[in-house]
């Protein structure tokens, strides 16, 4: 068991080294903002990875730029602006509300609303049916099957 654990640690160790995961800032507040930003930004070179997870060189470059902007005292919003100006809203995993992204943000609500409308209409339709409509439709044979099915 111990051998397996050690072998596993040896195997995963290079993964930890691949990304510059060392602390970027001594100041814990800057460090936590840095980590927040890099996990919110998409690496454009490998689109399903965040800057935090990617070791593509573009991600390395962008992390370096973000560290520079943070140490220059830029706010999170200014840093997101910097990235969106260059790469578009797509760079952010959570695009900001704007005319262009409004539909994207409202789509879940619209779909939920449509679902509620359909559900209400179906339920109303059922309520309009006589209560024992289903029971009457059942033949004696059906009942027989149910009774015999019971354990």
């Amino acid at each position: 068991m111990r051998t397996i654990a050690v072998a596993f640690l040896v195997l995963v160790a290079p993964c930890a080294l691949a990304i510059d995961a060392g602390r970027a800032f001594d100041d814990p507040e800057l460090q936590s903002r840095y980590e927040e930003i890099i996990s919110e930004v998409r690496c454009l070179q490998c689109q399903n990875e965040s800057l935090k997870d990617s070791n593509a060189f573009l991600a390395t470059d962008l992390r370096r730029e973000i560290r520079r902007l943070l140490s220059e005292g830029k706010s999170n919003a200014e840093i997101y602006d910097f990235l969106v100006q260059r790469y578009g809203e797509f760079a952010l995993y959570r695009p900001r509300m704007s005319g262009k992204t409004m539909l994207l943000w409202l789509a879940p609500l619209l779909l939920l609303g449509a679902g509620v409308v359909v559900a209400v209409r179906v339920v109303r339709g059922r309520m309009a049916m006589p209560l024992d409509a289903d029971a009457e439709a059942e033949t004696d044979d059906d009942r027989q099957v149910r009774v015999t099915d019971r354990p």
Partner: protein
Amino acid sequence: MTLRYLGPIAAFAILIPIFIIGLQRDPSELPSPFLGMPAPAFSLPSLEDPTVTVSNNDYAGQVTLVNVWATWCIGCRHEHDFLLTLAAREDIPIYGLNWRDAREDALLWLQQLGNPYVASAYDADGKVGIDWGVYGAPETFLIGPDGIVLHKHLSPLTEEIWQRDFVPKIAAVRGN
């Protein structure tokens, strides 16, 4: 045929074209936020001579191509011959942005394959690349005389792409 079947059929008829269009789009091709906007200013050492500066002022006032390339980029090798053709045929200067490359490798590349560029800016740490929103190579920007980005192309250039995407835009901006 009752009305209750119309809803699902209509939904199907609307969704299918959306899916067909969606599937044919390449999700890795992102529209550049710089289209119709001024191209970012830059000033970098020249690839050939580090004491010489290459900047956006060098091509101000004329229609220009800015081509992002590197020796590690296979697509750049594919389009290189076409860039040479363009440089010889068209009266449009091609500026190179040598992106995150080793200077010796890049110089050897130009020496062996030919140099289509008026000048190449040497962006060793990729900083100008970030300013231009570059996320891969090759990328080719078509810049108008006023410095506005008219078009951005994301894969190796070919004659077909040139005729289809570049020629009309160049003609429009030159007014002929």
